[in-house]
């Protein structure tokens, strides 16, 4: 008998060990319940994180646009795969933001705004020999813009240099038109102007559409190509707290009087879907928790009946009601805790297996593997509490047993 354990815990463990079959079955039940919750939660967190990471590597947190231009999220990609929305500017006559330098100054004063960067963007054709592709040309100031969209962190080849003669394109476009780092690529705009630029780097932002459609050039180069001398089509912003982006966008709207779209509002469908999923997840948790609790309770009720004589004997030998009660509460807690440990292992194993099996069409991972300690800790604490709560009724019943009746059997 372990000397560092109190009597109640020793008795609870012995009783569980003695009731092998019952203990094994209820543990299996709790394990499955917890595994389902862990698996679902990890999967959801992974898919969500994946989406957000993808959106935020290719999109600014807040984007300021000239009034009549409407940025529309488009859905695309393979069916069944959560694909991020790509914000594309409609093909219409490009308009510059009035007095953008003054607005940029204002933005840079705002404490919530980490980086604000001017962008001149429009459509053009990328031409190389016979091959040509329509692309979105984004003219940027590399020093600031590369902190908004972390292009340098996502370079597949070359170095992300952007002088007025340079261009950075996506890996997909490079493949389609057949260029490599160091090759020259011609851009021709609808205005009739064109520019021949040197490919300095290929990026991979983890999104096929973006890798095919977007090219980056120096702000000046874009302005003259698109006929926007001195003008910009948007101001792109990185904020400190990505989840406050919408609130900050509204503040910017009030401050500057021009359109400011946050990544949250342009991906509103995604967040609606996430909310719905989270609600489903919560419901499933509640019901799994409930059936786990009922399972534990029913096993313990049976155990109290089976052991009523022993309980009576313990009472005759001086066991207090509280001691008897704790023996059963602890059994509930131990069942919950052990079940949640094995359930966490099983759930984590399932997530890892699913992560390595389920792949996107291009072979990349469907979702990042997110196994937070907090999920397991939460599951363990919650399962233990559920177990203790479930044990309440049986434990009370055990404590209230009349020893005379119990001993007579």
């Amino acid at each position: 008998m372990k000397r560092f354990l109190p009597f109640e815990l020793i008795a609870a463990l012995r009783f569980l060990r003695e009731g092998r079959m019952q203990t094994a079955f209820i543990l299996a039940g709790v394990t499955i319940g917890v595994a389902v919750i862990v698996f679902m939660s990890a999967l959801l967190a992974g898919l969500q994180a994946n989406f957000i990471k993808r959106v935020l590597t290719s999109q600014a947190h807040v984007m300021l646009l000239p009034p009549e231009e409407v940025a529309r999220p488009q859905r695309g990609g393979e069916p069944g795969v959560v694909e991020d929305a790509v914000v594309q500017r409609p093909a219409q006559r490009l308009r510059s933001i009035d007095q953008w330098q003054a607005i940029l100054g204002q933005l840079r004063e705002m404490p919530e705004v980490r980086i604000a960067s001017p962008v001149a963007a429009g459509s053009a054709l990328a031409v190389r020999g016979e091959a040509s592709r329509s692309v979105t040309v984004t003219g940027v100031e590399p020093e600031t813009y590369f902190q908004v969209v972390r292009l340098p962190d996502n370079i597949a080849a070359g170095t992300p240099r952007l002088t007025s003669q340079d261009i950075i394109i996506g890996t997909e476009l490079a493949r389609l038109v057949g260029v490599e780092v160091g090759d020259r690529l011609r851009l021709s705009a609808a205005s009739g102007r064109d520019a021949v630029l040197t490919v300095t780097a290929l990026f991979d932002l983890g999104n096929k559409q973006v890798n095919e459609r977007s090219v980056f050039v120096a702000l000046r180069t874009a302005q003259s190509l698109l006929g926007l001398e001195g003008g910009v089509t948007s101001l792109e912003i990185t904020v400190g707290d990505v989840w406050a982006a919408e609130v900050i966008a509204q503040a910017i709207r009030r401050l500057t009087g021009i359109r400011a779209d946050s990544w949250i509002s342009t991906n509103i469908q995604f967040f609606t879907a996430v909310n719905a999923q989270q609600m489903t997840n919560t419901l499933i948790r509640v019901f799994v928790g409930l059936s786990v609790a009922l399972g534990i309770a029913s096993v313990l009720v049976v155990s109290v009946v089976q052991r009523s004589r022993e309980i009576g004997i313990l009472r005759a030998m001086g066991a207090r009601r509280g001691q008897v009660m704790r023996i059963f509460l602890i059994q509930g807690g131990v069942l919950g805790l052990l079940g949640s440990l094995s359930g966490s292992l099983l759930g984590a194993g399932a997530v890892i297996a699913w992560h390595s099996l389920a792949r996107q069409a291009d072979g990349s991972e469907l979702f990042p593997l997110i196994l937070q300690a907090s999920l397991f800790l939460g599951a363990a604490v919650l399962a233990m509490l559920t177990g203790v709560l479930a044990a309440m009724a049986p434990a009370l019943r055990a404590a209230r047993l009349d020893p005379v009746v119990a001993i007579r059997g």
Partner: protein
Amino acid sequence: MAEGPLPAAPVLQLAGVRKAFNLGLPTEVEVLHGIDLTLRRGEFCALIGPSGSGKSTLLNLIGLLDRPTAGQLLIEGQDTGALEDAALTQLRGRSIGFVFQHHHLITAFTAAENVMMPLLLDRGWPGEAMRRVAESLLERVGLARWRDYPVNRLSGGQQQRVAIARALAMDPPLVLADEPTGNLDTKSADAAFDLMREFNRSRGTTFLIVTHDPRLARRCDRIIEVVDGRILSDAPVAALAAPAFPPAG
């Protein structure tokens, strides 16, 4: 009984103890109708009587497992009527040992653990001292080598001896035994009875033993006979001329 000039201190005193079941219901029955009884330190008493006469009911009251409907019950001079459930439980744990007809050991524990159970319940945590108490008691009942065995590996007689050791773990002044040999063959019954006698002699523990076995009753110091909820006779064994109970049983 105590002939000497200084009678031993009373361990148990009952005065006008009554017990009725189904209080207030149409089927209310009074099972004990005013029991007066005093047991002194070191007495070794048999409690006999026909089936249904109220012996077990009386033992449950004395053992503080149940409360009388009327009357006074004192354990070592302490009136138990006013005690709360928790205090009653503590008094029971410390002052009274139980031996039941069916050994009633806790099968999830070993022999030694069963013996130390009353100490464990009292202290809350296992300790080396209680382990030693249990081992020496097991030695006294001749089961030292079984101490780490699960109790369901022992024979019925052995289990009853473990139960006797357990009843003495707290070294209580009073041990109550309800038909402790009822389920044992003659040899095991004698062994169990002898053990209780030995503890009574060596420790001065008072025993009150319910038995249907006249042979064993006659080996006690005093026989109390209950019939229909009343004490019909109460006398030292030497003074008994004839068996105080109907033949066969």
